[in-house]
Structures are given as structure tokens and as C-alpha cells.
């Protein structure tokens, strides 16, 4: 038999001949390498990490409690001697700790809701895409109908029926965002489904759930990850908007949206109340967007 093995350079062939298994580099690892070569993305990850750590250890960093009212300091600017680093709000509460508590809520809403949307969207979209035909039409019509429902209307109904609660915000935003996710996953699945390796798996007798799990999902997940990083900031913004309208979290708990809304009201006499939370929000949004762009470039096959 005319077999040959000369792969790559001869030296490589010789080394490989020595017998130990060569570890391949998966597409994920390639993407990871490219992502870490992207300076903006890495810097964004570091900044986000710092913000997250600050939010988690808020009580350790700051001597104040988020709901403690300092009657002597109402709406004052940054003061180092009292450890009111960001100053206080209109009710005399420390703005630094409130900003970090706001970060907790905002990041949590962003991440938890996105995860919920991710799980529902990927399952729904990949099933619709894989089965196609009538199943697909039916499932996607449902999505279309839900899509046409205005978000605000939906949330106001929820709030009226169940009262104001942070979980409602999760549910409400999740209910809407998974629709987009399902559409993206379905589109990707449709294209992956036509690849020959899916047919090869079918010809090898692999069962449908295994095809979806082993062959479809790993290959649609790339664009999905990019979408996820871009969805988190959208969700944070929606939450801020809801809070701005007074439909979000309840006092004394706060979020960036609430803080910004309060700050906006005091813009004239206490600009710091607007500036600090707004800067945090903006930096976070930028970070997510840079990471999303970095991921998109890293996963883009054209660069390979």
C-alpha cells in the first residue's frame, strides 16, 4: 500500500515518530490565543473583573452601609476625611457603596437574564432549526407573535399584577431577549445542518439528540457567545431604563439606572450624583462591547 505520513516538516515527522501522542490545538484554543492577543479585549476583561470584585467586596472596601443615612451630609460632593469618596446622595447615603450595590444589581440582572435567555434560546432555536419544515414554521411563528408584543407593555402588566420585585425584571427581560437568541441559533443551525459532517453523523447512525448535542451546538455556539457578550449590556440598559421609569428595583436597594435617574434630577446642584454611576455604567458597557468585538474577531474563520 502506498501509504505516506510526511505531514509538515520532516523534523516534526521525526518527533512524532517517537511515539508520544501529539496534542492538537482546537479551534477554541486558537480563538483563545487570538482573543488574548487583542489588547482592548484583555484590558476590558481586566476592568470588568475589577468592577465585579469591587461589587462583590463592597462591604469590605467601604466602611459605610448602603442604606445608612448621614443627616449631616446630604448631597455633598466627594469627601476624603469621612470616606465618602463619591460623596452622598440626596438622602445623605454614601454614594460609593450605593454605586457598588447598584453594580451588583445591574451586573446580576445582565448576567442572570442573559443566561436564562441563552438556555431557552439555544434549546428552542436548535430544535426548530434542526427539524425544519413544519415544526420550524410553527415554532418560529410563536416567536414572531411574542416579538410583536411591546416590552414595556408586558412589564407594566407584570408589575401591575405581581407588584414590584427584582425577579420580575429578570423574567420580563429574559422573556423578550431569548426570542432574538432563538432566531440567531435557528439561523446558525440551519446552516450547520447542511454541512456534510452532519450527514456523515446521520449515516453513522448517530441519534438525533446526540447529533444536536455533539455536532450542532458546539458549532453554533461561536456566534452565540459573541451575541451573549453584546446582550449583557443591552439587558443592563433595559434594566436602567426600567428603573429610570420607576419600574425596577425597590428602595433602599438600588441599581445604576436608579442612581442615574436620581442623579439626573439633581444634575444642577450635585453633578457627582450623576457622574459616578454614569461613568461606571458607561465603562461596563464599553467593556462588554470590546470583549464582544474581540470574540467576534477571534472566532471569525476568515482570519484563520
Amino acid at each position: 500500500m502506498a501509504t505516506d505520513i510526511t505531514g509538515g516538516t520532516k523534523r516534526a515527522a521525526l518527533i512524532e515518530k517517537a511515539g508520544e501522542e501529539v496534542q492538537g490545538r482546537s479551534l477554541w484554543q486558537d480563538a483563545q490565543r487570538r482573543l488574548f492577543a487583542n489588547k482592548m479585549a484583555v484590558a476590558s476583561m481586566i476592568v470588568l473583573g475589577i468592577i465585579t470584585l469591587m461589587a462583590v467586596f463592597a462591604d469590605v472596601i467601604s466602611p459605610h452601609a448602603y442604606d445608612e443615612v448621614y443627616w449631616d451630609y446630604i448631597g455633598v460632593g466627594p469627601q476624603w476625611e469621612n470616606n465618602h469618596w463619591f460623596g452622598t446622595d440626596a438622602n445623605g447615603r454614601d454614594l460609593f457603596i450605593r454605586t457598588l450595590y447598584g453594580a451588583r444589581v445591574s451586573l446580576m440582572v445582565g448576567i442572570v437574564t442573559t443566561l436564562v435567555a441563552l438556555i431557552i434560546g439555544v434549546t428552542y432555536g436548535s430544535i426548530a432549526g434542526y427539524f425544519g419544515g413544519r415544526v420550524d414554521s410553527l415554532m418560529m411563528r410563536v416567536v414572531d407573535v411574542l416579538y410583536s408584543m411591546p416590552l414595556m407593555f408586558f412589564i407594566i402588566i407584570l408589575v401591575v399584577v405581581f407588584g414590584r420585585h427584582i425577579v420580575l425584571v429578570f423574567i420580563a427581560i429574559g422573556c423578550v431577549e431569548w426570542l432574538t437568541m432563538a432566531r440567531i441559533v435557528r439561523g446558525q443551525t440551519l446552516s450547520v445542518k447542511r454541512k456534510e459532517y452532519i450527514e456523515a453523523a446521520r449515516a453513522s447512525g448517530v441519534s438525533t439528540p446526540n447529533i444536536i448535542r455533539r455536532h450542532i451546538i458546539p458549532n453554533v455556539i461561536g456566534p452565540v457567545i459573541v451575541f451573549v457578550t453584546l446582550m449583557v449590556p443591552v439587558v443592563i440598559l433595559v434594566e436602567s431604563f426600567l428603573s429610570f421609569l420607576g419600574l425596577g428595583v425597590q428602595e433602599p436597594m438600588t441599581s445604576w439606572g436608579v442612581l442615574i435617574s436620581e442623579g439626573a434630577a439633581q444634575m444642577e446642584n450635585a453633578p457627582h450624583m450623576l457622574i459616578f454611576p454614569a461613568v461606571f455604567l458607561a465603562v461596563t458597557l464599553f467593556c462588554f462591547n470590546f470583549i464582544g468585538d474581540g470574540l467576534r474577531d477571534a472566532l471569525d474563520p476568515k482570519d484563520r
Partner: protein
Amino acid sequence: MPPVENAELLRVQDLKVHFPIRTGGIVFGQYTPLKAVDGVSFSLKAGETLGIVGESGCGKSTLGRGILQLIKPTDGKVVFLGNEMTSMAGEQLRAQRQHMQIVFQDPLASLNPRMTVGDIIAEPLTVFFPKMSVAERKAKVKALMAKVGLLPQMINRYPHEFSGGQCQRIGIARAMIVDPKMVICDEPVSALDVSIQAQIVNLLMDLQQEFGLSLLFISHDLSVVRHVSHRVMVLYLGKVMEIASRDSIYAEPLHPYTQALISAVPIPDPDLEKNKQRIVLGGDLPSPMNPPSGCVFRTRCPRATDICAQVVPKLEEKAPGHQVACHHWGPPAQALV
């Protein structure tokens, strides 16, 4: 070429695969069948290679997929190892897949980019022998990798780290791992360079010899088909034009289409090629959506007469083992090569 046994492995009877295509507007549109495969019959013996040739779009791949039940045939029978396959579904069908495998045209596209080579080759094992231990599975994969000419140490690499020829070897290993009785090769060398093509052709023929495989070798390259096949079937617009043993089809093709195909192949020999009188067919392949009446080949056939437009020629045995579907069949008027 390995000898052929006499046992019949596969019988395809009047197989039809039609795709419903929507024509016209959304409102007044209707479904017209696209007859990708339209009444194909043949049989394949154990250890035999049947070459399937034809222009692109004439239904070669669809025929292969119809036989494997990857596309449900519209009509007809596929009898494999004595079992009628078209009526099977679910588990029963999956169990049959162990014995019939497929190798694809595009080597890289047929491998999942997110799986290691070892996992790709072992996948059929996990389906048909779920109880096999991981170590045993790995040993089997490595042994087969060596056999198809891949370094077993490469087991943890990913498809994109291999060249086209090597990817095709991986695809062949995946097909061979469960010891199938028949492998359908859908243009296995068309995407490869000349120098790599010979390696893969040799590998397939060696494997056939060693394991007594039957091959359905689909290709549009008549030279390669001549090299690998025992018998050759010529398709045109989803219909069989001619089936015969390799020697009779190349030495004395009786169908005008086969003659044109053979004469169209450029031969790497300047003296022969510059002096040869080519039979040049006019026009293009008609759309399979509305094939010509009567004989589907009549719009391009140099021998066509009135009867060809009215009566569909039947595939009939005109010489021993040589079936032709033509009203005016006969040997070519001139030397073809």
C-alpha cells in the same frame, strides 16, 4: 483488481427520489417534482465496485443518499443484505447503518471541526458498540489510523490541522471502523490534487481487497472510474443510460451519451489529443424540473429522431451483461480516443 464473489449484496429497484419544488408565486404557486433520481435499478455483488458516472446535477449524489436512506426515496426498493430498507425507520434503520457507510466529496467539510480526529473516527463505534471500553476503542482507532496511512500519534489533533488528502483518509477511517460491507464513495477524489488522488484511490482499492468491501464509486472522472470499477453505470437526468462491465463500456459503448462522455475526456497525450475527433454535444444539461419528453437525452443527442421524442427508451440488455436505454443504440461511428 480483487475478484468478485457471486452473492448479491444490494439490489436497487426502480428507485425514485423526487424533490417537491415550489414554482410560481407564493399565492398561485404549486409544487412541481424535481426528478433527481427517476427509476434507477441495478444490483451490486459482494466485493464488487460499481462506478457511477454522469455530469453534475444528474443525480449521482442523490442516488447514493437515497440508497442510504439519508433522503427518503419517493418510490422503489432498496434491498440490502436481504432486507427492504425503504420501509424501515428509527432503530431498525440505524442498526443497518453499521453495514453501509459513506465517504464524502469535500474532505474537510465532512469532519466536525470541533472534534478530535480520534473522536470523529470512533463515533460510529460509540453508536454500534456502546459497551466497548474507552481503551479498546482507542486501540481500534489507532490501528485503523495506521492502516489508512495516518500517524496514530495524531489521534488528538483537529481536522483543520490536516491537509485535504489526510482529511479524506480520516473520512475513510470513520467509514471503515465498524467493518461495513458496502461503502458509498461520493466523488472521494474530486476535491484532491492529482498527486494526492492516486494515494486515495490506492488506499480504497487496498481496503476493498483486504476486507472484501463492495464500493459504489461515484465520480465524474471517467479515467478514475475506469481504474477502480468492475462495472460502470452511466446516469443522465436521473435515469440510467447504460450499465455494463468496465471493459465493454470503455471498449464499445453502445449509448450515444456514453460515447460523447468518453470522447470528451481530455487525454494527457499531445499527439492523441491534438488529432482526436471529439464528439461535441451541443447545449447544456436541461433542467431536471422539466425534462424533455421521450428520451431525456434527445435535446443533445446526435442520433435523435422523431421516435425519441415520443417513446421513452427502456433499459434493455443488448449484449451479454450490457444494458442500454436507447432506440438507436450501437457502437460509435469513429474511434473515441
